[in-house]
């Protein structure tokens, strides 16, 4: 247990420290003209690349239209590459075309920064598809999230939102690209492959044949982790020894999951000019996430009960679905981090976690804001803040305000629509698939755990996460279409609504904060926000959790 605590503190503490300078850099990169900063000179270059539209300031509607148009181009490009991969270069293992519904699901998944995978990369994807379609979207879809957060922050600071096309290039070229290169080099040094040679057929010492798939893994995995994407180069993701070969590659990848989402909070604070407020938000997020980490590490230190009646030594916790080289607590820690952010990569099989451990990632996806996806996590938190200050204002009979902006019925309606749509997609989807052969015929485990597999899949799609209880046989037309649609709606609704709120707020006159204003920089606000998150976010899903992991724990664990 000492090692577990030491390891968790090392990862979280180290990343939190690194997020501070990174947040400062990101504020400079994403918002060069902001307040006191000087333009960084790249803006002109990005305007030249983007063309004439990029020179105008955009209102929230123009910003959203540009964002949707850009995503349409991303979708068409990726779909075309996957459909035509057999005619394209870099295909040493002669992969064939991807089936239509799987292509739709995969394209939706990577456009939506989800990376839910109903395929195994080493089985169906050519190297060209992996890099030019999937890895490319891992850069630009994450950049879209950062752009939205930058626009939202500017709006809250009382300034124009900026230009989407410039923002998305700033995020891609100034934030993600250099970070990805640095991490990719670290991954090479810790043992990841990066080759364009095809698979190798080996003959073992016992004379058995083994085909070894490989590829340009290091470049892919780096941005997969940094951009809260999570889609693995290989089917079993970062459990695969070529995707995550050593203890230290695991440390680099674990830190990469959470560092940009953490830095997003500091970037937000810098752009709105309220670092104390950002520190309060950071603390609330850290507490919510830390609670789940403690739960997961604790629950997972219990050995698997499947071996209880056999002569097996069990003193190191549940090892099914885990790799030895990462150490005992690396699996549950990663499971929580990857679902706290919308990353969705795995270094242990979540389906084989103890039932209550498996609930921790689900709770993370249900809340989806601490720290959440790149950019969009902080945007989700903004929805909770709007609801939180509204409730607080009502309780004490004052006009609810956030940073001097008067929050009224319209803004709260938008925020609640955003938050409730999350529960709607997860619970309605789970109900339909649990009641029909669409879901019931695809399960790998029986009873409550089978229900958990369906619940997890819809939670993952709606949270734009991408991890799964991977036993689920999810490459069917029904799963591909249903989760594809959920991913797209769940991506764009919580991006459009907050920008609409900003549009609505900035049409009002901003009040100056006085001693009568509710502070957003103290413990009362932190408590209020935490309560809002738990009541609105978690309790919505409590009945579903009771049917899945809790039922499994109570009825089947001895």
């Amino acid at each position, binding site marked *: 247990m000492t090692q577990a605590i030491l390891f968790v503190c090392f990862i979280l503490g180290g990343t939190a420290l690194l997020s501070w300078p990174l947040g400062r850099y990101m504020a400079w990169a994403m918002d060069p003209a902001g307040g006191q900063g000087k333009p960084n000179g790249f803006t002109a270059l990005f305007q030249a690349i983007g063309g004439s539209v990029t020179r105008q300031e955009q209102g929230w509607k123009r910003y959203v239209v540009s964002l949707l148009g850009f995503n349409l181009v991303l979708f068409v490009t990726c779909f075309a590459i996957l459909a035509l991969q057999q005619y394209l270069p870099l295909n040493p293992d002669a992969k064939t075309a991807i089936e239509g519904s799987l292509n739709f699901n995969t394209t939706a998944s990577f456009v939506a920064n989800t990376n839910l995978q109903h395929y195994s990369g080493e089985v169906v994807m050519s190297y060209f598809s992996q890099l030019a379609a999937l890895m490319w979207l891992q850069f630009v879809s994450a950049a879209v999230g950062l752009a939205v957060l930058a626009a939202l922050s500017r709006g809250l600071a009382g300034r124009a939102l900026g230009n989407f096309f410039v923002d998305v290039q700033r995020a891609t070229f100034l934030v993600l690209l250099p970070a990805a290169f640095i991490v990719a080099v670290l991954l090479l040094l810790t*043992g990841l492959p990066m080759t364009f040679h095809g698979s190798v057929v080996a003959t073992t010492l016992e004379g058995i044949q083994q085909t070894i798939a490989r590829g340009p893994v290091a470049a892919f995995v780096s941005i997969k982790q940094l951009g809260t994407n999570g889609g693995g180069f290989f089917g079993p993701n970062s459990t695969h020894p070529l995707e995550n070969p050593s203890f230290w590659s695991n440390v680099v990848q674990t830190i990469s999951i959470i560092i940009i989402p953490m830095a997003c909070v500091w970037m937000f604070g810098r752009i709105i000019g309220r670092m104390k407020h950002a520190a309060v938000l950071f603390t609330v997020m850290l507490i919510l996430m830390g609670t789940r980490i403690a739960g997961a590490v604790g629950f997972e230190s219990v050995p698997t009960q499947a071996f209880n009646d056999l002569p097996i030594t069990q003193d190191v916790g549940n090892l099914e679905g885990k790799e030895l080289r990462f150490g005992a607590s690396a699996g549950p820690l990663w499971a929580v981090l990857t679902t706290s952010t919308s990353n969705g990569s795995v270094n242990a099989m979540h389906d084989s976690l103890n039932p209550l451990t498996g609930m921790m990632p689900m709770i993370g996806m249900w809340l989806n804001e601490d720290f959440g996806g790149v950019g969009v996590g902080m945007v989700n938190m903004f929805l909770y803040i709007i609801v939180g200050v509204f409730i607080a204002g009502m309780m004490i009979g004052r006009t609810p305000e956030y940073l001097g902006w008067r929050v009224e019925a319209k803004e709260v309606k938008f925020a609640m629509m955003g938050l409730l749509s999350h529960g709607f997609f997860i619970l309605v989807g789970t109900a339909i698939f649990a009641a029909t052969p669409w879901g019931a015929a695809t399960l790998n485990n029986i009873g409550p755990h089978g229900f958990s597999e369906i619940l997890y899949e819809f939670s993952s799609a709606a949270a734009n996460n991408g991890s799964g209880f991977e036993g689920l046989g999810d490459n069917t037309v029904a799963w591909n279409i249903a989760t594809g649609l959920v991913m797209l709606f769940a991506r764009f609704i919580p991006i459009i609504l907050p920008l609409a709120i900003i549009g609505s707020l900035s049409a009002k006159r901003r009040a100056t904060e006085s001693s009568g204003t509710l502070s957003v920089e103290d413990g009362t606000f932190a408590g209020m926000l935490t309560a809002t998150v738990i009541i609105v976010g978690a309790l919505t899903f409590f009945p579903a959790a009771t049917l899945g992991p809790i039922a499994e724990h109570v009825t089947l664990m001895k």
Partner: protein
Amino acid sequence: METLISSLRITVATMAICVGAYSAAVWAVGRAVTPDTAEASIITRADGTVIGSRQLAQAFTQPRYFWPRPSAVDYNGAGAGGSNKSPTSTDLTDRAAQAVAAYGATVENPLPAELAAASGAGLDPHITERAALYQVARIAQARNIPAGQVEKLISDKAFAPGGVFTPERIVNVLDMNLALDNVQIR
């Protein structure tokens, strides 16, 4: 229309830099700095035939070799995966019972857990030092060599993967089997 044109221009720019230039740069660094692992640590005999990858587990069932952890995909290096079975599943118990039988484990000499638990990708190349020592008697008998020789090999090859964070030492199964057979590799 202007929106689409700008989107296309940015698509071209990001493709060129984030896919083309970035992949090429990472590839070049790998080739220059870590040429072996960049090609997936392939092990080749002196005569040029490929034995496997140092990073991936392979099936070993003969008594004279160290055996790896169980694999849910039969050590398929081109289609990896885990069992994805819940701890409450009886399938796991059945598979573990097979492992217990294969090793001849008893209550007095219980099996280390990882020899009964499949890894996430089914390709975990390592077992713990304890699980390697568990197999010494069988290997020594099959090869007709002193147990001490096998034990020395294990203690030479064992390492703590994460220093202070991982007190339990592990060993690479293929690495030890190559040493047992004294295979000449390139």
